[in-house]
């Protein structure tokens, strides 16, 4: 049997702000330390280094795997005597030229691609053809065309960077919301101004991802090219340093060369790209 029960209106008194217990409590020191991303990452690196050291000593064959400490010693020595910085600088110079030209060309190609249908088809076809083609496979041809020198390296670098970056840029531009586009057109933005002020910032997460991939591709291609035709780039870069050291059976130096490449990669990823990310896509809330 349902019975209608008359219920009164209920009004409650609220507590003042001083009557609460804990509203905000600081984290413990351990929690605070664990929250530091860089600290967690460094821990991972330390664990890996220790594992390497133990394995190297247990194996006791420096020609196969020298312990981490030997590799570090070789690294420090060659950094101190200027051998590695010089090689790294020579590699980075070529790398930056190739990466920058590749990115600029990718940008031009993508702008052409979004502004006309034939441009889209062109970019689609070109990336389908050339993206899977390893840049290093073009090196023999490049050496014939541009001779033994930085020119050939820049050519293969452009090839390795351009397609990956333009694919990402195009995907980013295509993903820009209709509303954002309409907003831009509402303010009479057309052509390059539209691209610069609406499309590029709106597609920036994709563009940044493309740049990262392009950067990694460029490194790989460059080191591979130097390992094959290293002496061609004047005094030789890091790849050539590794190759030379191996020929002289200076295995710790080989590892030092590899470590340098890794360290530069980490620095670029965690300093340069991280900096760009925090200043742009993270601040804009486009990436969490």
């Amino acid at each position, binding site marked *: 049997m349902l019975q209608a029960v008359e219920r009164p209106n209920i009004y409650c008194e609220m507590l003042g702000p001083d009557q609460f217990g804990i509203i905000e409590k600081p984290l413990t020191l351990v929690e605070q330390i664990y929250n530091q991303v860089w600290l967690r990452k460094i821990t991972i690196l330390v664990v890996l280094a220790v594992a390497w050291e133990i394995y190297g000593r247990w194996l006791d064959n420096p020609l196969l795997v020298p312990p981490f400490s030997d590799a570090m010693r070789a690294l420090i020595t060659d950094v101190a005597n200027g051998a590695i910085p010089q090689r790294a600088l020579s590699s980075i110079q070529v790398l930056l030229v190739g990466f920058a030209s590749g990115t600029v060309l990718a940008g031009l190609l993508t702008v052409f691609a979004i502004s006309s249908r034939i441009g889209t088809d062109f970019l689609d076809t070109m990336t389908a053809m050339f993206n899977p083609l390893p840049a290093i496979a073009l090196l023999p041809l490049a050496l014939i065309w541009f001779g033994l020198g930085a020119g050939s390296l820049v050519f293969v670098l452009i090839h390795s960077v351009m397609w990956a970056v333009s694919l990402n840029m195009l995907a980013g531009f295509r993903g820009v919301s209709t*509303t954002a586009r309409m907003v831009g*057109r*509402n*303010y009479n*933005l057309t052509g390059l101004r539209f691209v610069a002020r609406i499309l590029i*910032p709106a597609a920036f997460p994709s563009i940044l991802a493309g740049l990262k991939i392009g950067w990694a591709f460029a490194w790989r291609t460059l080191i591979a090219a130097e390992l094959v035709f290293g002496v061609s780039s004047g005094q030789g870069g890091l790849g050539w340093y590794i190759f030379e050291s191996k020929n002289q059976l200076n295995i710790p130096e080989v590892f030092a060369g590899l470590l340098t490449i890794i360290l530069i990669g980490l620095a670029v990823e965690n300093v340069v790209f991280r900096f760009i990310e925090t200043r*742009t896509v993270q601040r804009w809330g*486009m990436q969490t």
Partner: protein
Amino acid sequence: MASGATLASKSTLPGMGGAKAASPEAAIRGRAVTDTDPGRHLLDVRGVTIQYKTQHHLITATYRVSFNVLQGDRFVVVGPSGCGKSTLLKAVGGYLAPTEGEIRLKGELVTKPGPDRIMVFQEFDQLLPWKTVFENVAFPLKTTGTLQGKAADERAMHYIEKVNLTDFAHSYPHTLSGGMKQRVAIARGMAMEPDILLMDEPFAALDALTRTRMQDELLGLWDEIRFTVLFVTHSIPEAIKLGSRILLLSPHPGQVKAEINSVPRGQENSDEAAALGREIHEMLFADQIEEAPNASGG
């Protein structure tokens, strides 16, 4: 180009509002009638048919829609989903070309988007995420060359104050709530002082409480600035509350069912408003049953 004209026209506003009230009370039923004095019209939509193609169909969104918006009007287009009201607004914005008929703003044919008709969208992503609230509001002023430097900054700040967002002027949009984002969008539109503000269901994605508050705020802003707004909604109460004049569109394709006056300001809860609401509801949904299967899209 547009800025000078806009400023000049603003000053004539209150007078024009009076002229509108004097127009004959005759509720115009059926196809809207062309006014005899087109010089007074701010926006002139004449016999506009809009068709667009999808992959498989040619869709007629609106069919021979005509109406006039006067200076200072709060002109609301209301209709069920799929009546082409958003499409119509996009055509006024210049994003779509009508297949038939013409749209004139101050006697000039609308052919492309322009800063004399600023659009406020329903979507929250209309704010550019890489700009702060302040930069978002100042952006169109600077980029269209309406104002430069300090003048633009001051105008932007002025309208940010108007929508009560001074404290958030230097926040990025992703840190704001939906209602605040829409306020920024409205401030950005009004800072341009366009001839007409086009609003495409700007409050539809908000919760009911925020929505009511935003409606009140918009009316408050209108009392202060007397801008002209063309507002699209599918909510009849919203149309009655916000509109000074209401255009009813039938669904699929959108045709003018009626163009009527709303109740006076502040009487949206009166019996008169309720009667008007019922009348509009009956007109819009008289043929609901046969139209229901088609009522998709916006």
